[in-house]
């Protein structure tokens, strides 16, 4: 009796941010092992931040990720403000939400149009897609640009903005600076509704997973910067209790740390978790768009994340319009505070999921200890679970098609591997 091993290697996964790999072994039609590895070189942020000033944390941690720098800036300033017992409210809080709306729009549209949709339609890239559907790709690029324009107007530039600081901003934008955003946002609003309709028609693999979804939850708002950490399996904790509920492990195949819920295991952060745990907090426009796309108030098919990203894009656009409409220039660009020793925790909802920061500061505000838990590290085990299910459902596919399907499964998570390391190789072995 001969044993058949199938093996497919993809050493550098495409259309993800950073460097990762996948290794799969199938022996006689049975899935033996699935590994999603991250080999992005370690950059040691948590180590070299020791001894640096709390003031530098938003600028330094932004450099963990060029796609979601605002998320790093927000989680870090909230952690520092927690250590200083400082609350930033009012217009400055609105401005933080506005710049985060910009990052959600830019990052979600990048993923929906340029990284994910080509998988559903069988194109190698959005540039190939643009050959047949130029107007669709141009719509995406214009939407992405408006997200970047918001970040640039409030933050100075789209990648590694320079205006976010502990206590608020270095300079608050003027009404006149924000006003030109409105016309493009109104166009983008219609474009976002068209985007939801467009992605709702894509052929969705039928996969339902029993995820433990984890996201932030705020009493009145769809979560960005504030709230408790909740799950659909009973978790409900303050951000400061993160390390009581979650544990990070270091395994051989990865330069990222794996996170699990203590004594339960893998969990899932990102748009699907936010949507399912906070559906009633979505704006009516976003809920309507979701219903017309055929979604219910909960969604457990990871492939449908593309629809939820489109819905969240509409949410962010309407939120941005509302903030700009009500904007009055604040009397001060940042709130004064007193530096003191202590520990601070901060979490915010990056486009690809919850991002937790913790810092211990000395009396001068120098960082003694830093802990950063990015969304993709938290999703790593869940991605492996999905790969196993999709692999088992598609063993009859020839290797190139199966490889592509598995890549698409990973891209459902918009993985940011630069973040998670603080990289992806796809390698399928069949026996």
């Amino acid at each position, binding site marked *: 009796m001969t044993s058949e091993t199938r093996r497919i290697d993809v050493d550098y996964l495409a259309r993800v941010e950073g460097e990762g790999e996948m290794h799969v072994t199938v022996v006689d039609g049975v899935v033996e092992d699935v590994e999603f590895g991250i080999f992005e070189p370690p950059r040691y942020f948590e180590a*070299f931040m020791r001894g640096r000033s709390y003031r530098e944390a938003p*600028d330094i941690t932004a450099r963990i990720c060029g796609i979601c720098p605002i998320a790093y800036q927000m989680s870090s300033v909230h952690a520092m403000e927690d250590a200083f017992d400082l609350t930033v409210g009012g217009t400055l809080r609105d401005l933080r939400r506005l710049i985060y709306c910009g990052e959600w729009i830019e990052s979600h549209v990048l993923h929906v149009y340029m990284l994910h949709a080509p998988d559903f339609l069988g194109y190698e890239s959005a540039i190939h897609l643009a050959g047949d559907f130029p107007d669709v790709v141009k719509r995406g690029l214009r939407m992405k640009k408006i997200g970047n324009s918001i970040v640039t107007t409030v933050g100075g530039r789209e990648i590694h903005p320079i205006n976010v600081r502990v206590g608020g901003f270095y300079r608050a934008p003027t009404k006149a600076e924000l006003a030109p955003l409105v016309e493009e946002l109104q166009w983008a609003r219609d474009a976002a509704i068209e985007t939801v309709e467009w992605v709702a028609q894509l052929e969705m693999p039928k996969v339902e997973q029993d995820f433990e979804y984890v996201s932030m939850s705020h009493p009145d708002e769809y979560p960005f910067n504030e709230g408790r950490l909740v799950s659909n399996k009973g978790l409900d904790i303050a951000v400061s209790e993160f390390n009581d509920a979650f544990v990070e492990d270091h395994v051989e195949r990865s330069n990222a740390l794996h996170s699990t819920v203590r004594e339960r295991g893998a969990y899932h952060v990102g748009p699907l978790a936010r949507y399912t745990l906070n559906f009633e907090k979505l704006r009516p426009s976003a809920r309507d768009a979701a219903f017309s796309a055929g979604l219910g108030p909960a969604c457990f098919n990871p492939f449908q994340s593309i629809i939820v990203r489109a819905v969240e894009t509409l949410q962010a656009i309407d939120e941005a319009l509302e903030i700009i409409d009500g904007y009055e220039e604040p009397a001060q660009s940042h709130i004064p505070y007193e530096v003191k020793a202590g520990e601070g925790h901060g979490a915010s909802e990056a486009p690809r999921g919850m991002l937790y920061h913790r810092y211990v500061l000395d009396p001068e505000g120098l960082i003694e200890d830093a802990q950063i838990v990015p969304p993709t590290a938290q999703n790593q085990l869940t991605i492996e679970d999905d790969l196993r299910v999709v692999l088992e459902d598609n063993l009859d596919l020839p290797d190139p098609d199966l490889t592509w399907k598995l890549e698409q499964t990973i891209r459902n998570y918009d993985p940011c591997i630069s973040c998670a390391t603080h990289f992806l190789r796809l390698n399928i072995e069949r026996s």
Partner: protein
Amino acid sequence: MAHAAAVATKPKLAVYKFASCDGCQLSLLDAEDALLDVAGAVHIANFLEASREVVPGPYDVSLVEGSITTPHDAERIKQVRAESKFLVVIGACATAGGIQALRNWKDVDSFTSIVYANPQYIETLQTSTPISYHVPVDFELRGCPISKEQLIEVVAAFLQGRRPNIPTYSVCVECKARGTACVMVGAGTPCLGPVTQAGCGALCPAYDRGCYGCFGPMESPNTEALEMWWRELGVSDRDIVDAFRSFNAWAEPFREASDRVEARLTVTGVTE
């Protein structure tokens, strides 16, 4: 087959990533108005962040983001050089080692044990170094992140066979052009603008903060004069060291300045 013929004659562009945040290659995707024109003018033959398609080299222009931090990457960059007619390195990581070059002053094993429970799984070099330490490069485009306008200029220049028009003067020139009042003279805010290369458009002073040097040292910067000025503003030597040791810490003029001030710290025993 008109399409295939067109592809065959277009110059081939490749984009590579080493240790970095992805932000500089994202700048190409962020050039929303120019992206489809660029895709029309060149054949984007190898750009993994954007496409599954990988057309084998050689390439006419390769853009390289990131620094060299692992034994594997130190070998990989030689292969990239061998396949590339012009090698253009982009961003502070590729031109200066990036923020991760802060390890160069420390023992990397102690860093590994701070971040990772099982240091034996981690393979890394003692230093984070720029691409030019490993292979000859044809152009270095500065910035953390790079300016997308400068990126388009550099790609266009190499395709047209000319030198890129990238100024090497300081941020101060851009502040004057923009009409921003000097934050150091006016508000007494410490600013690295006088020693930092232009390219950002003098952003930070326009947002009421001092430049923090993300485009790296200008041509022939006078770091000693700046150091004295900062001291007069009451900045501690410890903070001056940290200011030079950020995203372009390992760029020679900034490295020398930080080492000089740090030596002074050690000599005088001042540990502010």
